[in-house]
């Protein structure tokens, strides 16, 4: 269950409305908004996939100029990957050869 924070840059026209739109999903929390139109958002999602969906939706909202991820904590997921319970969907292009076992 990853938690991530983002810096969102908003169109200055009506930032409060944009923030209200952001908060349609209960997983999205807005922690602050400054005069320069920058907001701090935290997403507490059920999975990386859900995190990605939410971030994509937020990016497409009217008035959102940019959404930059800053912090990601996925310790629960990592623990599940480490224990073998979860197999991550993504790969980062390593050669298929497995790393040499250390024993």
């Amino acid at each position, binding site marked *: 269950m990853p938690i991530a924070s983002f810096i969102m840059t908003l169109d200055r026209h009506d930032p409060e409305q944009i923030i209200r739109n952001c908060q349609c999903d209960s997983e999205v929390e807005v922690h602050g908004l400054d005069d320069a139109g920058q907001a701090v958002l935290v997403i507490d999602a059920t999975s990386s*996939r859900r995190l990605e969906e939410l*971030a994509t939706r937020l990016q497409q909202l009217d008035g959102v100029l940019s959404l930059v991820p800053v*912090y990601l*904590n996925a310790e629960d997921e990592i623990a599940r990957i480490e224990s073998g319970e979860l197999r991550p969907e993504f790969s980062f292009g390593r050669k298929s050869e497995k*790393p*040499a076992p250390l024993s």
Partner: protein
Amino acid sequence: MKQQFLALLLLALLVAFAACSRPPVEPSVAAAGHPALSAQDMLIPCSSCHQEVTPGVYSEWYASTHGLDNVKCYQCHGTYENLSVTPDMDRSCGACHANKLGDHTGNRLCWDCHTPHSFTYAE
């Protein structure tokens, strides 16, 4: 698409981690743009390839106090799985120079003043 997003997210984090207090997740080697390595390749010290592919960086490091004192590539940049081009200041610099983070740096990054790899003391 999913992969792309995650890769992008991690890439962004890579840069962000430079000043982030304690990254919970290590960025991956692919995100750092390193070519894929075979299991045997992974057992070659970073410096033996980088002596050839980035000779400038290598010689700056080798002649530096870090080079003299054997502070090797992986101490700041991690190893294959947790490689980061831009080290996390807290974990790499901070391990030895904990007292220099904080007041000494203010909001700046170590390498704003100290040239990366040669890291001259007096800068």
